[in-house]
């Protein structure tokens, strides 16, 4: 596609439920990134993928968070047993390659509200 897409755009869930957030990167982009932006706050890095591999998972806030990427394309961020503090906008970005010389392009985000 022309840009990074994310789904759903909005998700309201009850505390304790599991949610899955999807990211479709720009076609041909090998690197993919997930960020979180809490209300009125800056952007917090969560995880990056090179192909299907996520070498560094230390940015994930807790073991309730997991992410995977398949076929070098679509990625899913899963939050188990959601808590109210998980409420935020989750942003996905992709770049042509991993590394310091490549621009990141962001999707529109998924707004998650945990009630």
């Amino acid at each position, binding site marked *: 596609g022309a840009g990074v897409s994310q789904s759903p755009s909005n998700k309201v869930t009850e505390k304790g439920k599991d949610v899955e957030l999807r990211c479709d990167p720009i076609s041909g982009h090998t690197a993919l990134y997930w960020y979180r932006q809490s209300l009125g706050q800056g952007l917090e890095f969560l995880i*990056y993928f*090179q192909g299907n591999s996520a*070498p*560094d998972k230390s940015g994930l806030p807790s073991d309730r968070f997991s992410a995977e990427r398949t076929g070098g394309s679509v990625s899913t961020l899963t939050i188990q047993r959601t808590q109210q503090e998980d409420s935020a906008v989750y942003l996905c970005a992709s770049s042509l390659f991993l590394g*310091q*010389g490549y621009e*990141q392009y*962001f999707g529109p985000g998924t*707004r998650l509200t945990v009630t």
Partner: protein
Amino acid sequence: GIQVEQSPPDLILQEGANSTLRCNFSDSVNNLQWFHQNPWGQLINLFYIPSGTKQNGRLSATTVATERYSLLYSSSSQTTDSGVYFCAVISGTYKYIFGTGTRLKVLA
């Protein structure tokens, strides 16, 4: 870890005014981008500028990597320029570190 600070935190301008936003970073970087986050939350790339100067229409950016800062200039501001401006740098592995942002409001 690397620290990224932006100033001013908030800025209100009249339409037609010029502005300068600043991004300071605490360590050397090889990658710096400026983004505009519009009122709907979409982050839009403005510049990829690890060093030097670039211009795009009413916007220009300069990064002086040796002095660890970058500037974003805007001329003849329009109400559609309102939003939050972020700079972001890469540190360590491959994760972007975002600045705290400058919230800009342009009044008609």
